């Protein structure tokens, strides 16, 4: 349990650093650390497959692309668009409303009892695969169609429109 609290603290600490870091590249690096703590959370939950996939997909691929893009566009103080006071005030009000909503909803909820897994080895590759491909085959396949449609959309956006003459 203590490990959980320590890792949870690290997750929150790094995610706060993500939004307070001045330099966008530093903030991506903190985001990478945040995702790494998520991987440790999954391992603590005995979900090895999810942990390693989170590691490969998020830390190894998606965040590399984030970093890649940020390094290319080269954000710095001069190129950053100046925000008007109106936007700042609107942001403060919006943030306060969000905070109030969250506090209210947390107060309304009681503390939930700790979840006990029926089968602690559910997160191992073999069991996860059996569940995914037997009980949840249809949603699993449909989600792959969803990914395909996203890919087709991206290709469509990237192709140049033919010249209309």
């Amino acid at each position, binding site marked *: 349990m203590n490990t959980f609290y320590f890792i949870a603290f690290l997750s929150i600490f790094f995610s706060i650093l993500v939004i307070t870091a001045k330099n966008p*590249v530093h903030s991506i690096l903190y985001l990478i650390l945040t995702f790494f703590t998520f991987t440790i959370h999954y391992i603590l939950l005995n979900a090895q497959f999810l942990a390693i996939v989170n590691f*490969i997909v998020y*830390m*190894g691929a998606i965040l*590399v*692309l984030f*970093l890649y893009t940020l390094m290319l566009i080269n954000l710095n103080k001069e190129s950053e668009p100046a925000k008007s006071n109106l936007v700042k005030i609107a942001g403060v009000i919006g943030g306060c409303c969000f905070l109030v909503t969250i506090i209210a909803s947390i107060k309304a909820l009681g503390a939930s009892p700790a979840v006990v897994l029926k089968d602690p080895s559910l997160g191992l590759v073999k069991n996860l695969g059996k569940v995914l491909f037997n009980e949840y085959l249809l949603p699993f396949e449909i989600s792959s169609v969803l990914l395909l449609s996203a890919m087709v959309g991206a290709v469509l956006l990237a192709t140049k429109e033919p010249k209309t003459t």
Partner: protein
Amino acid sequence: MELTDIIVKFILVFIIFAISLVIAMYSTYAERKIAAFFQDRIGPNRAGPWGIFQPLADGGKMFLKEEIIPTNASGFLFIAGPSLAIMTACIGSAVIPWGQKLTIGSHVIDLQVADINVGVLYIFGVVSLGVYGVMIGGWASNNKYSLLGAIRAASQNISYEISMGLSIIALLMVTGTLSLRQIAEQQHGWHWNILYQPVGFLLFIVCAFAETNRTPFDLPECETELVGGYHTEYSSMKLGFYLFSEYINMFISSAVMATLYWGGYNYPGMDWVLAHTGPAIGPLIGTAVLFAKIFLFIFFFMWVRWTIPRFRYDQLMDLGWKILIPLAIANIVITGIVITLIK
């Protein structure tokens, strides 16, 4: 876990760590000797007999050179880059099975640091993490050539990771497990996976060249275009770490290839040898065989380096996306059809 087990694991980690560093060190020597052989020269021959102390001299030189951190570089990340590169290179060896279980007296020693049931994916994760060292170092140098090198490394690694992953999927369909220990055990004797997955191995070795930034895919440090690539601004041991991590990566990827496709510590007639030498010596012969395979792969890496010229950048991307990925997908489909037909 008992105390003796922990001590044994600790010693094992220490030995593996030492071996990978020593092999990386002597890979630099082997590379220079092999290059000399290919170009009809003598190569390093001054430090010690046949120049075998050359790596020590190089190491000493690296340590004694002046540390330079450019004024406009971001200090912490500039140091974090090479550290990350060498760390990710070293942690990959944790899941590789180095031999069968060793029995000394009543003790059974597992010649593998961690037998996790997602071993293949762990290797894959470590490989994908390797690019951060190059990217962070290249960006933190605050130099255009370094940045270009870092960006090339990132796009190259991501492109070739895809076909590497696809080639592994076909292998996993054959083996049916993600644990490297089980994959090695399935290849007992001469049932090596290369017999079932020749195309997959071809894809894997091409991707391994690209992931370790070796020629013909060493575009991130292409000195004719980018001065020194991502390590242009580095000097002293920080540069040494980058160069060293490349050799460690080469060693680890050779070990992975030997384990996944070339039978790991298995060799024809191993049962006979094991029965005649006993459980304390027999597994060590298997380990020696594994290292022989690894050395052959390292030699192959160097052979290719001094034979094939560097690719152009668009050729690299064409090869990755238009040839390797379709080939890998076709390999998966054919493997699937064959497995279904046999069953």
